[in-house]
């Protein structure tokens, strides 16, 4: 369970940092009147939707950290046999990076108000994300064709489970991206479009990060990395 505890430690650190800016040492029973004028407006200056997405991504991060924890605990048992990763995963990784870059470009373009560039970026991101999903399915088919079936070994089970869970999150993201893209064509208000594009970009970058982490996990590098850390500590 060490992975999830480290993840939670990061969250606790962030929450602690945030709380330390919230005047928790104040003595509210001695203060009357409008504190708001002294310490600035309530809430954060960030758009509410961004904070909402941030909290949601923390939950998603927690979910994948827990899968990773379970992965390591199950891996320590004797029947574990690592599976060879299909080469197509490298291609998929590249495609997902492209997708993220496209959305970043769309986000920059939205800030400048270049609607054509926004549309181009959104469509590119959508198509590359679809390509990523297709690529993942190809990887699954290759593995099943080579006899690495879901139930044959826990390593296989985890591979399908974790990549599937990640794919589902991409699929959910595509719904949001689809709505944003439709808005870009149907003349959504510029500031609203900009916010939607930024939210999509944020989600995409996060899922790219998650993918890189689970790619490292499934390829076995994460285990090697942790082994090195452990040796350094002992």
């Amino acid at each position: 369970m060490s992975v999830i505890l480290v993840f939670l430690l990061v969250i606790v650190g962030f929450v602690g940092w945030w709380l330390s800016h919230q005047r928790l040492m104040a003595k509210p029973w001695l203060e009357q009147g409008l504190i708001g004028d002294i310490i600035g407006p309530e809430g954060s200056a960030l758009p509410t939707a961004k904070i909402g997405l941030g909290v949601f991504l923390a939950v998603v991060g927690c979910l994948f950290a827990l899968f990773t924890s379970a992965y390591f605990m199950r891996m320590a048992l004797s029947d574990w046999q690592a599976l060879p990763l299909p080469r197509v995963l490298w291609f998929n990784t590249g495609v997902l990076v492209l997708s993220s870059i496209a959305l970043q470009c769309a986000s920059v373009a939205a800030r400048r108000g270049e609607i054509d560039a926004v549309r181009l970026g959104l469509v590119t991101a959508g198509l590359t994300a679809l390509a990523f999903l297709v690529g993942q399915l190809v990887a699954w088919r290759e593995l099943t064709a080579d006899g690495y079936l879901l139930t044959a070994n826990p390593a296989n089970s985890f591979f399908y489970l974790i990549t599937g869970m990640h794919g589902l999150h991409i699929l959910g993201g595509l719904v949001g991206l689809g709505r944003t893209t439709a808005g870009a064509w149907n003349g959504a208000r510029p500031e609203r479009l900009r916010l939607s594009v930024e939210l999509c970009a944020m989600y995409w970058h996060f899922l790219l990060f998650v993918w890189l982490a689970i790619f490292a996990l499934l390829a076995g590098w994460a285990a090697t990395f942790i082994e090195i850390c452990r040796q350094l500590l002992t």
Partner: protein
Amino acid sequence: MVDVTPADGVPPAEVAEMELYHPHSWWTKYVFSQDAKVIAIQYSATATAIGMVALVLSWMMRLQLGFPGTFDFITPEAYYQFITMHGMIMVIYLLTALFLGGFGNYLIPLMVGARDMVFPYVNMLSYWIYLLAVLVLVSSFFAPGGPTGAGWTLYPPQAIMTGTPGGQDWGIILMLVSLILFIIGFTMGGLNYVVTVLQARTRGMTLMRLPLTVWGIFTATVMALLAFPALFVACVMMLFDRALGTSFFMPAIVEMGEQLQHGGGSPILFQHLFWFFGHPEVYIVALPAFGIVSDLISTHARKNIFGYRMMVWAIVGIGALSFVVWAHHMYVSGMHPYFGFFFATTTLIIAVPTAIKVYNWVLTLWRGDIHLTVPMLFALAFIVTFVNGGLTGLFLGNVVVDVPLSDTMFVVAHFHMVMGVAPILVILGAIYHWYPKVTGRMLNEAMGQFHFWVTFLGAYLIFFPMHYIGLMGVPRRYNELTATTVMTESAHDLNAFISIMAFLVGFAQIVFLFNLIWSIRHGREAGGNPWRATTLEWQTSETPPAHGNFGKELPIVYRWAYDYSVPGAKEDFIPQNMPGSFGSSREPA
């Protein structure tokens, strides 16, 4: 005295006004409503309905335990199904849903001075997915083989094997699907509660001016958002094991003389995931109760809460600590002794902030102007009950004491006191307290007093003897114990006594439900602020509050939530939105 009102008068509220969704038809106003208050009532009604099912299930269990061999329809399989569904419904579908979905939805926007939750559409979806989860759960009663009888902890491998009711039928699958749905629905609601507290507070409402109810629900929601994924992961992996034949949790095992295709999995892995959710869950239920009870005590004792800052810090501290105590549920799983040592230590440390809270409640009562209203009675009963349940927790937190007691009725009595009776007392008190705001009428006082005394005394008459028979060595999880050395004649008599008391307490809840319905029409008119309370929900222009909560303009907050009996003030309470400076005689800053 620090008076922080600017010299040039009060500026207008600058909080950005929300775009409210305006319902166009009866359906969107009362059924598919995006108003947090309607959603809160939907959540509460659904949770109460499914909670009644769980109450009846507990009666069935008590029938069997009190009068073994009398009722033919309670087979051993049925008994395990009753246990499982009773536990799961009470913990997740009643307590979690009612505290966060019910009270959270109703109170957060009103108490922080918001028009509504920040994502009303997602909030509505949250309820409908919760309802779907409940329906899936209920459907397992009608599925072939009936609901799962795996125990509420659903431990593999037995949970998905032939010998367990529902293990190879529909029961366990429906249970896991229902839990997964619940978690998805809860996450949607939880995002709303957290972000509303962060972003939608009205002008002047700093974090340290929030009522403790909001602090409790807020912290519990943050914890739930981080803890429920563990249950989600456990459920998905178990669903894979059961439906697709993987071996995440399933070891190599022989069933009915046949080698199963599973092999090599780790049941302990499931226990870690389950309790990584399961222990925070205790505090997910307890923290809102802590918060609500603080407000009830302060209001009905007409006194400011003692040690507000300490209360806030304790809530946050308990929330953080509760993530590093989970393995104290697993002392008997054969873990490394040093692990047990670590988790026993953290478990005992968590008693410190909890004790601080109890002291502060008692010190709030000290020399207060205590009004023994029904909500106050429930709040006082909570303190006593929580101390009782907490003290046996200190026993069980120690490995050497837990190991012999772990499989006895002592544990059942302990967790029912601390996690069942205590939070339910707060829920009941809170309903008596806020019902006038929700409906505009008071609940009937006589029925309320009857309900309180039967529930309070009855709960003790159920669970004190249960501690005792647990110490005698009567094991839990057995549907029938005849002619064993631990089941003496007197233990049997006590069991029968407990069962009769359980029926009595259940009956009192039916009186309460009747009161809820009867008072909607026949209750005394309450007015806007019957308890003369300070917090914002009592200052709305209409009762019950209309869509949008606060008439034309949002309230502006000038003070904390606990200005009761301030010397020099005209009345014994000063609402949070009342400007001006009072109480010059209090201690200087």
